[in-house]
């Protein structure tokens, strides 16, 4: 049963259509949850005992960090699927993850820095979380560089897929080595805002933001992926119907 569904999605016209239907169902809930989460996090949730109102940055920092790793993993998994089953659709989805993932890695770094300045006094510390995020950003930028450097689509897909897989295998090792290194030198670590220690009034908006971010990422990846699928299809009678039928099937997403 699931295999049938998987095979269907592998077909470009099916994916194009189905993704087109899913996008609004992902985008609008993402927007709604995002608004609820932001309002709750900024206005309704109580201030923190130690960090006052400043901790609220977590409501954008943590989801961004989550998105940065989640997107990289998704990029690598779809890349592996594309390589193993020679599926253009999978490569299309994989390619669609990179810019989004890199953007949110950058946001995680910037908001982390903005959080750090009032809390520990400097704009930057070699905190294990921030250092790992920085390395993840380099991994993304390398991927994007490789994408841009190879012109032929099929070669570009497969080489970048390999890079994504090599990267994802390395990410836990890199995280571990950075944690290990950090524990030796006891550099300050500010983001010790343990989820277990947060009361529900603070935790719930955070979870809402996580959900919003994930749905948003899924929606945007599908928007891009539909285009990427079009790029990879040289022939195919379905294309005429697809692009004639609805010119902007991407819908209106917003925050």
């Amino acid at each position, binding site marked *: 049963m699931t295999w049938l569904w998987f095979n269907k999605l592998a077909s470009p016209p099916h994916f194009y259509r189905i993704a087109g239907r899913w996008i609004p169902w992902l985008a609008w809930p993402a927007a709604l949850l995002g608004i609820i989460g932001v309002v709750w996090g900024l206005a309704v949730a109580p201030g923190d005992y130690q960090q006052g109102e400043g901790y609220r*940055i977590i409501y*954008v920092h943590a989801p961004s960090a989550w998105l940065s790793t989640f997107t990289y993993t998704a990029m690598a998994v779809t890349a592996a699927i594309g390589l193993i089953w020679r599926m253009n659709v999978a490569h299309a989805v994989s390619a669609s993850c990179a810019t989004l993932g890199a953007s949110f890695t950058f946001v995680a770094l*910037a908001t982390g820095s903005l959080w750090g300045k009032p809390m520990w006094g400097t704009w930057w510390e070699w905190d294990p979380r921030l250092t790992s995020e920085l390395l993840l950003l380099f991994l993304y930028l390398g991927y994007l560089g490789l994408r841009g450097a190879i012109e032929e689509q099929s070669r570009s897909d497969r080489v970048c897929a390999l890079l994504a897989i090599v990267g994802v295998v390395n990410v836990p090792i890199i995280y571990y080595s950075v944690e290990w290194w950090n524990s030796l030198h006891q550099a300050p670590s500010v983001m010790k805002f343990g989820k277990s220690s947060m009361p529900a009034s603070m935790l719930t908006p955070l979870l809402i933001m996580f959900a919003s971010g994930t749905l948003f990422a899924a929606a945007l990846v599908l928007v891009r992926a539909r*285009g990427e699928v079009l790029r990879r299809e040289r022939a195919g009678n379905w294309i005429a119907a697809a692009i004639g039928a609805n010119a902007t099937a991407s819908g209106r997403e917003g925050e």
Partner: protein
Amino acid sequence: MSGFLTWLSMGKYAAYVWPSFGLTLLVVVLNIHWARRSFREAQALARRRLAMRRSES
């Protein structure tokens, strides 16, 4: 009104909290824009290819 201003000041962390949320919103909007533009460009490319194939046949 003063309650609103107090909230805006974010307990003197305003200079950090608001740019954080603002940057995040900016990146969200940019990504929406880039994704939709990428899709539109792919559609235009597909249309051009279709037109070329039709003119050849």
